């Protein structure tokens, strides 16, 4: 996938040229492109004088970053303790069956990416599924499939 290198430079120019900015820039890449593109890593390496391997290490260490493009919509199933107890595993399985992908994968049509997250901090709504920015509390294997239909 070709990446607009100007966008990369635009993001980089918003930060001071210090290693402290690396993680923040990578997170902005993730937001802008839905992944951390190879071109971006190379560019950062040139600008900051940091080996590509080190940036690659960060991109693989931090869960918020991905090296492959994500789908148009991200489904985050909370599997924090409260959600686990209240049936999050059933919810994950139901989505897996419907979309035929496992957590960490993206559907072939790039409509959905499925992720499990450890806690979104809204335990009162358990089990919680966050699709893009929308929170769905009290999710079940039943109602979550209906909710998926809202996203195209």
């Amino acid at each position, binding site marked *: 996938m070709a990446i607009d290198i100007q966008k990369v430079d635009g993001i980089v120019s918003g930060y001071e040229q*210090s*290693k*402290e*900015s*690396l*993680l*923040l820039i*990578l*997170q902005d890449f993730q937001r802008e492109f839905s992944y951390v593109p190879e071109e971006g890593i190379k560019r950062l390496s040139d600008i900051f004088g*940091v080996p590509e391997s*080190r940036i690659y*290490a*960060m991109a693989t*260490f*931090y*869960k*918020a*970053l991905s090296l492959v493009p994500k789908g148009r919509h991200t489904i985050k199933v909370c*599997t*924090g*303790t*409260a959600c*686990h*107890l*209240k*049936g999050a595993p*059933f919810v994950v*399985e*139901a989505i897996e*069956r419907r979309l035929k992908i496992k957590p960490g994968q993206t559907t072939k049509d790039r409509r959905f990416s499925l992720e499990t*997250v*450890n*806690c*979104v*901090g*809204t*335990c*009162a*709504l*358990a089990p919680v599924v966050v699709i893009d920015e*929308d*929170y*769905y*509390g009290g999710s*079940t*294997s*039943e109602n979550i499939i209906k909710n998926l239909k809202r996203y195209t």
Partner: protein
Amino acid sequence: MEHTKISTIEGLNKYREKILESEKNELPTVFVCGGTPCLAKGSRQVFEAFKKEFGAQGLSGSVELGIKTTGCQGFCNQGPLVTFADKDIVYMGVKPEHVPEITEKTVKKGEVIASLGYRDPQTKEWATEYSRIPFYGHQKKLVLKDVGQLDPARIDDYIAGGGYSALVKAFGMSPDAIIDNIEQSGLRGRGGGGFPTGRKWRSCKAIKTDVRYVICNGDEGDPGAFMDRSIMEGNPHAIIEGMIIGAYAVGSNKGYAYIRDEYPLAIENMKTAIEDARGLGLLGKDILGSNFDFDIKISRGGGAFVCGESSALMRSIGGNVGEPRAKYIRSVEKGLYDKPTVLNNVETWANVPLIITGGVQGYRKVGTKGSPGTKVFSLAGKVVNTGLVEVPMGITLRELVFDIGGGIPKGKKFKAVQTGGPSGGCIPESLLDLQIDFDSLSDAGSMMGSGGIIVMDEETCMVDLAKYFITFLVGESCGKCTPCREGLRRMLDILTGITEGRGKQGDIELLEELCDCLKWGALCALGTSAANPVLSTIRYFRDEYEAHIKEKRCPAGVCKELITYRIDEEKCTGCTVCAKKCPQKCISGEKKRPHTIDASKCIKCGVCRAVCPFDAVIVE
């Protein structure tokens, strides 16, 4: 109000007076909870409805001052919550259609609408006063006092309520006197470890150096914990004020707030707060004419649990992979960029202004001798009332779960509480009268942790829970040290075996041995405490482990390999809902006749049980 730099203490006092003067409002301000759970339940729409209603009615006072969105007001499962300034009224489950009535009766005339209050499930009585609602009545709000009473995005709200006056007082004290105060207050790190904050500050200050750092740890990674998020979202200036005081006391000019990326609203509110504080000259050069410079930079975490560990967090701020280091030399000596660093948790920082304002004696009035003050907990799991609570240290678990939490839903039996997340342990019913403080929780094999309290009922399998935490930790282990990287994987193998019916004699002992190795051999606190979920469940629920191993039975009916689904012929009405929804199409039967499940095809997905309106699907 216009934000121009204030350069003296007097200037700040005048500024406060001006805000109070300009915000005189004849009608009480309406507070609409803007915490994430309430937003998810539609509080944004309620807020908009109020705005529209106030505008349409041309109510006195500007709309901006009359209605405010606040941080989390606590009673999350009853949201959206609406409260009023200077009134002892809280409304729950508010919908946009309630807004005209609330405006007409409560805002304009001060009348109470009882049916929007809390309904006691036993007495069926309605209550709208905080003191009459058990969830609020048993709490002691100090750190959270202003969360829910101010708009976190407006620094003027914080200042009007007396904000930044602790800083003014601190500037009148010597740095050593401030540290003395913090030390004598007995404040202990709220992030979980419980290390005395004053001692940490003193050690840092004692070291001769050119640069020191202060850091706020907002990387709240424990599943089931959302206290720090609520404080960052709901009252960010309390944290900033605490950090400025801390920095002044130890002699630091640069601070960092490390916030996990999963908390976008917390990041946004902290960012706004820092910018506003800078705009008023409360951060930056020569703060309030004190000759003291200090500023704060925000770092966003990248979704790695281990970055909540102090040395990993500091590596992450520096633009590295967040791996911890061995702490033969503590971070107060060599922390961020190898400089002396004070790192405290969000809630700890928010306690600092309280101590300075109220004095040591005032602060110690609440809590226990060894753990003074309050603690914020997030109460969740199988409990009726879920949400954010602040209680004095020393309260018992029973009070927390049954008085505030309202007990276990659906008449189920209480089994245990889990405290401290993946670093903590489970506490059984026999210890429900345990006082909650740092020391007694550790003695019971758990820990305070950052304050997540998860309640479990009889349908929770303790072996599955131990497996859950170890699975979590395997995924989050940074892989640097062998006991954590390898030990946890082997523990997961054994636990998976037990839950899938392959457990054998000696498994429990082997788990205990691995735990011991982890406890003594792991590099950082995340590794050494990773044994707690396993050890505590073995300690208190050994019989459950044995039932899995010897009888190949899961008493709680959770472990898939050890259970079967069956339809109760007496309860089944033959409505066919389950048969239609079954993904395996393995439920059959005639309409209006009891159905049956073909166990050979069943994948135990639980769909039939979830959809059955008659609770006729049984797990055995």
